[in-house]
């Protein structure tokens, strides 16, 4: 019995215990259920009826910002793969001097200012534009006045940027130091001012100047620029993350442009022209173009114009492309090609009467060269070759008038067929349109002197590029190549003259450098064929001379080398300010061209190959 009672008691205890656990669990369950219901009700309430404060929304919503992705601008490269223009970032440092100002206690503020002193010392050492004390004073002053931005130094490159970021204070980051840098992409030119006008630039849209696209940079901006992209950046607990969904548009980098320029030749040409014109106070500027005969590829294009403020020669205007003027005696080759092609002159030895240097039936000035020639040679006749060598205006005016007096249109037509009367599509904007008058022009008074003056290089207007293109065609046996810097090669005219005429012209041009007005080139390191030319610019009064007897000179040498098997054609043109000095084509231009030829001969593979063949023989 006792045992049974004990068993019953144990059983009842267990049941009581179980009930107690059950109740506890039940209460927990009820609490959980209550919380769950409360959560559901709250969720429904928040979703349907709750409108939070905008500030709370802003702080709780992950920040999404649209960030433009800028493409990397393409590089400009020379024909041997050397970089002529490249985009590099620069950094402008600034400082928010109010950072931690309010939250710092006295001790912390002292530490901050001590670090600012070290930072100032570092800045003074790097920028070297102010003393350490000046920097420190500027920072503390700005901190006292509560300035949120002060500019630090000037824009710096990446290396200096890293150095500044490693200075005391700055290394603690933007939110502790207030130091930050704005990055901006700039265009850099490793070869400095060499070919700057040809390489060109693109000005900001904010520029007040309308001419914002210059040179290759400007013309090929649509390729170099690339395509902007965009991305959405959101802030997360782990940092900023880009949304890799359909909102992300990748930037397409700009394409590289390979030009025909050879920066070595460019430097040689630049130095040669500079050495000729620097020190000549009366010169306004000059240009020099080196072109490959077979392809028309421009290997060097130098344009130097005197800066009116500094007096130094700078690449500030593309004279070779944009400046047209009366070409002078270099145009006599055009006349010679015309009369040879039309059969009016059969050989260079053909003679014409000297007639005292006066072209009969015209008001053209007497040619003093002919008077001297008559006196020295005791003759009343002169060959076309002699006339060409001495660059006689009389001979070429006579040839033009004698040949085309009845049909001047034929001569003009020939000039147009030599592409000297029109603009062709060139890789740079701004190729000036030549001027070739015709007897029927409304805006030009055609007189008895017009034909003669065209014959020796006046009345027409040509750019240096047009002239070299013409001479290049002679070197290329009549095949006229279009000059190019990027897009090419292409042919402007398959034949502007017969090969026989081209050979005759080469002989005449070679005679000029051997025994004519360009004798300075006789001793060049390879044979040169070419022609000098000197013309006078017109003053506002319409005369070639001002009231003080000053003249505006344009001296030119144009030719090609080696004369027997031309590889390069070259033109050098100089322009003077009003002066009483004489600047002839056989002077500075011929000397500059000789220097270019001598140096190029030593480094161009063409001459190396030729030497090898000779050695093998």
């Amino acid at each position: 019995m006792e045992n049974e009672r004990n068993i019953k008691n144990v059983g009842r205890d267990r049941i009581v215990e179980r009930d107690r656990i059950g109740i506890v669990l039940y209460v927990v369950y009820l609490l959980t259920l209550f919380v769950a219901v409360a959560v559901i009700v709250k969720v429904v309430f928040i979703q349907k009826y709750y409108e939070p404060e905008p500030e709370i929304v802003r702080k709780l919503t992950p920040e999404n910002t649209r960030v433009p992705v800028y493409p990397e601008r393409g590089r400009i490269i020379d024909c041997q793969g050397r970089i002529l223009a490249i985009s590099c970032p620069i950094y402008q440092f600034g400082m928010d001097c109010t950072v931690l100002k309010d939250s710092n206690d006295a001790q912390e503020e002292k530490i901050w200012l001590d670090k600012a002193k070290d930072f100032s010392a570092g800045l003074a050492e790097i920028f070297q534009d102010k003393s350490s004390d000046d920097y420190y004073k500027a920072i503390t002053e700005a901190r006292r006045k509560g300035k949120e931005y002060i500019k630090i130094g000037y824009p710096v490159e990446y290396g200096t940027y890293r150095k500044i970021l490693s200075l005391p204070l700055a290394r603690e980051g933007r939110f502790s130091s207030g130091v930050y840098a704005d990055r901006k992409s700039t265009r850099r030119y490793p070869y400095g001012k060499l070919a700057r006008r040809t390489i060109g630039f693109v000005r900001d849209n904010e520029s007040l100047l309308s001419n914002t696209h210059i040179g290759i940079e400007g013309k090929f901006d649509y390729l170099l620029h690339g395509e902007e992209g965009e991305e959405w950046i959101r802030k997360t607990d782990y940092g900023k993350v880009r949304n890799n969904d359909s909102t992300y548009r990748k930037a397409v980098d700009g394409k590289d442009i390979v030009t025909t320029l050879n920066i070595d030749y460019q430097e040689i040409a630049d130095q040669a022209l500079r050495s000729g014109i620097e020190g000549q106070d009366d010169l306004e500027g000059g240009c020099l173009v080196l072109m490959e005969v077979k392809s028309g590829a421009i290997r060097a294009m130098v344009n130097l114009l005197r800066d009116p403020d500094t007096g130094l020669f700078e690449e500030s205007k593309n004279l070779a492309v944009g400046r047209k003027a009366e070409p002078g005696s270099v145009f006599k080759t055009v006349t010679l090609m015309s009369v040879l092609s039309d059969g009016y002159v059969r050989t260079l030895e053909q003679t014409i009467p000297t007639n005292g240097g006066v072209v009969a039936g015209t008001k053209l000035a007497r040619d003093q060269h002919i008077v001297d020639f008559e006196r020295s040679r005791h003759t009343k006749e002169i060959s076309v070759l002699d006339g060409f060598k001495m660059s006689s205006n009389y001979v070429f005016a006579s040839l033009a008038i004698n040949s085309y007096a009845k049909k001047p249109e034929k001569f003009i037509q020939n000039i147009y067929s030599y592409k000297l009367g029109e603009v062709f599509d060139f890789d740079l904007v701004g190729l000036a349109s030549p001027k070739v008058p015709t007897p029927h022009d409304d805006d030009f008074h055609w007189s008895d002197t017009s034909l003669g003056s065209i014959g020796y290089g006046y009345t027409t207007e040509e750019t240096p590029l047009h002239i070299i293109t013409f001479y290049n065609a002679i070197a290329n046996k009549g095949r006229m190549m279009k000059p190019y810097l990027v897009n090419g090669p292409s042919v402007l005219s398959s034949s502007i003259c017969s090969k026989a005429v081209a050979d005759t012209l080469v002989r005449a041009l070679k005679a000029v450098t051997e025994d004519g007005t360009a004798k300075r080139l006789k001793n060049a390191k390879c044979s040169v064929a070419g022609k000098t030319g000197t013309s006078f610019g017109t003053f506002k009064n319409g005369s070639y001379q001002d009231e003080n007897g000053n003249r505006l000179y344009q001296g030119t040498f144009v030719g090609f080398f080696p004369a027997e098997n031309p590889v390069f054609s070259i033109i050098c043109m100089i322009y003077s300010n009003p002066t009483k000095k004489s600047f002839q084509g056989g002077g500075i231009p011929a000397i500059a061209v000789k220097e270019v030829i001598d140096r190029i001969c030593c480094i161009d593979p063409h001459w190396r190959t030729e030497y090898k063949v000779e050695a093998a023989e």
Partner: protein
Amino acid sequence: MRWNISDIVSLLKNSLKAILKGEFLLRLNAGRYFIHIVYTFFLFGLVIWTSLMIETTLARVEANRVKLQELQIANVQKTYAVASLGRRTEVAKNLIRLGSDIQEPDKPAYLTDER
């Protein structure tokens, strides 16, 4: 079988009572799907964890992108500096500075017999 409103009321009443008693799921015999429920909750957890991992990785990608950009900038700067040194006059100056006798050639190069 037609459902009356009183049936629905009594169903809701019974369900409520069952919920209060903690027997709702037992009455639905949800124990049979216990493993599925656990698995569903496991998947929820997995999704949350994966999402966090993705965010961490993307943040790392972003940080690396910044580093890569910095390296590219450094590379561009070096390229620019090297290109600047390639200028003929610059080379000549450096040769003189280094005490070299090499100068600009004064005649074309030729190939020697050893070739």
